[in-house]
């Protein structure tokens, strides 16, 4: 353990030091090769211009390199792999995709993903909005919000342990230690293995994600609500509008953009959901989702890269509309000069 710490310490120093070294070093070099500070004569002027053409790339270089290696090329390569066989050697055309759409597990996963997509973002956004509204004027509102928000800091695995405990099942007649079953038996029902119930178990898994992500929605929507100008609400009140009318006709439209951002962000997250299903059920009892399916095909049974890649592409395609929308939004608003 001790030597591990030493090793880590030195690697950190080297890694971080290397970074600093690159940035300082390359800029220093640039200033040396094209000196521009001393005076205002023609060569200094020319050098300054050369500097300002080269320097941006020094700044951006490492980022571009890493992004290309870790995100851009992999995306392209995954796309390419999806048209090849399990080891990535032989071109097989659409075979992987054909297989996928005919495969039961795949269809099940798509179905489950759609289920997740329909329920979780909407529920999180709705609850987030309600809690944001309720806590807005409480003196202890900030504390309340941070408690709702806290699950976000917990890993998905940790959350799974917590909720597995909640859903725990003991046989009929025994004392239940999972709180859900305890409540059920208290009211006379019989305990269930919640995570194994066909179809409904998905919802019990979803509850975990809702538990985690509602905090995200709450914080953002609360900030958006704060940003609504008082005047618009006061004017509406004077105009005789009742509370629900004000909420739906004045408040919600003004934060509509934010609601959309929250909803789409959670949607993207849901599409990538992996940890929860892995730790709670490991895709058993028909809970499989696309990310887990892909993981399985990647590693189990020696790995089939072609099929795994095809599944990844399917996930990507689902995310595409949101990506395009985000890019459009970003293009509309750009600061700097």
């Amino acid at each position, binding site marked *: 353990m001790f030597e591990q710490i030493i090793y880590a310490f030195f690697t950190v120093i080297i890694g971080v030091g290397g970074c600093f070294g690159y940035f300082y070093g390359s800029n220093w070099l640039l200033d040396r090769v094209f000196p521009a*500070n*001393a005076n*205002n004569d023609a060569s*200094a*002027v020319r050098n*300054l*211009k050369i500097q*300002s053409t080269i320097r941006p790339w020094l700044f951006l270089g490492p980022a571009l390199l890493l992004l290309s290696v870790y995100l851009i090329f992999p995306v392209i390569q995954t796309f390419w792999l999806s048209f090849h066989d399990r080891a990535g050697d032989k071109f097989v055309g659409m075979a992987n995709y054909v297989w996928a759409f005919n495969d039961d597990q795949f269809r099940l996963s798509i179905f489950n993903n759609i289920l997740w997509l329909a329920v979780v973002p909407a529920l999180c956004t709705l609850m987030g909005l309600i809690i944001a509204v309720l806590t807005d004027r409480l003196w202890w509102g900030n504390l309340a919000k941070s408690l709702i928000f806290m699950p976000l800091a917990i890993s998905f695995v940790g959350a799974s342990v917590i909720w597995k405990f909640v859903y725990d099942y003991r046989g009929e007649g025994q004392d239940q230690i999972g709180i859900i079953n305890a409540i059920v038996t208290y009211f006379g029902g019989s305990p269930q293995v919640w995570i194994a119930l066909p179809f409904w178990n998905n919802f019990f898994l979803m509850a975990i994600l809702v538990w985690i992500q509602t905090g995200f929605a709450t914080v953002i929507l609360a900030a958006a609500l704060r940003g609504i100008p008082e005047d618009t609400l006061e004017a509406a009140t004077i105009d005789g509008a009742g509370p629900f009318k004000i909420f739906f006709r004045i408040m919600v439209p003004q934060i509509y953009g934010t609601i959309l951002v929250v909803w789409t962000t959670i949607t993207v997250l849901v599409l990538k959901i992996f940890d929860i299903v892995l730790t709670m059920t490991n895709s058993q009892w028909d809970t499989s989702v696309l990310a887990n399916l892909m993981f399985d095909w990647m590693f189990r049974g020696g790995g089939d890269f072609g099929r795994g890649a095809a599944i990844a592409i399917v996930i990507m395609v689902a995310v595409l509309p949101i990506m395009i929308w985000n890019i459009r939004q970003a293009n509309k608003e750009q600061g700097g000069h």
Partner: protein
Amino acid sequence: MADIKLTNLNKSYGTVHILKDVNLDIKSGEFIVFVGPSGCGKSTLLRSISGLDQVSSGTLEIDNAVVNEVPPSKRGIAMVFQSYALYPHMSVFENIGFALENQGLSRAEIKTKVEAVGEMLQLTSYLTRLPKALSGGQRQRVAIGRAIVRGAKVFLFDEPLSNLDAALRVQMRMEIAKLKRDLPKTTMVYVTHDQVEAMTMADRIVVLQAGRVMQVGTPMELYENPNSVFVAGFIGSPKMNFITGAPAEKLNAKTIGVRPEHFEFSDSKTDIAGTLDYTEILGSDSFLYVTTPTGMLTVRQPGRTEFKTGQKLNLKPIAQHVHRFGEDDMRLAK
């Protein structure tokens, strides 16, 4: 000290043509003020001279060198921004010394120069403070200090007094005037929308409208001989009275302009007849607002006025102070 020469300068942002064929000769050591309404291009012109914006066409010369392609830090200019742009996390000393750091001076040299400037601007006791602990006037002095310490040949001011309240503004005007006196060899280009600042501080004024230079001259030249309705109406407060219709036709002009202090009261019915609508008594002057058939006129009377609201008056413009303008709103020969 440096001359600034603009020849056929044009500046566009994309398809929007902001500055149109600007020609200017600014003499070394002059205090020249660019003035005009919002959107007239005065700030753009200033930024073009500074190099923060690139000129689209035409030539810009500073100290007889063409500087179109030269970056701002190499033009020998210093700029005081409207917001002062003080680095919030640096002390006054560091703010003023920053430029010297970039020039590669030693710490001792920097210390000497900064302290000298600090003394000149009475900032010595504030040198260790952060900008947020300074008042508006002090911040402005730091901004000016930054400009002075570099020994720049040209100072550029971008509406530095706009953020101050009225009383402070008067005081700061005096300080800038003092600066002008203390640095007689430095060319100073000052941008403002406030014509009072222009009139009180400038050696010469450049009036801009919609990207064009309307008139260049000393304050009194512009006051007494405006070349257009626009300039005539822009310079002078309260605004010059413009009269169209019968009184103008009588003098063979489309519009005549008469400043509030250039009216006489008469009994003659051939002069402009009107009713006193409203009076503003300032103590030193009284301003009478008189409704006439061709519009409302402002008349200035020194001290108190004995006229009462509702009273009928006849106004006669003093002949040699009448400005005549033709169809194109430009001045007609006298």
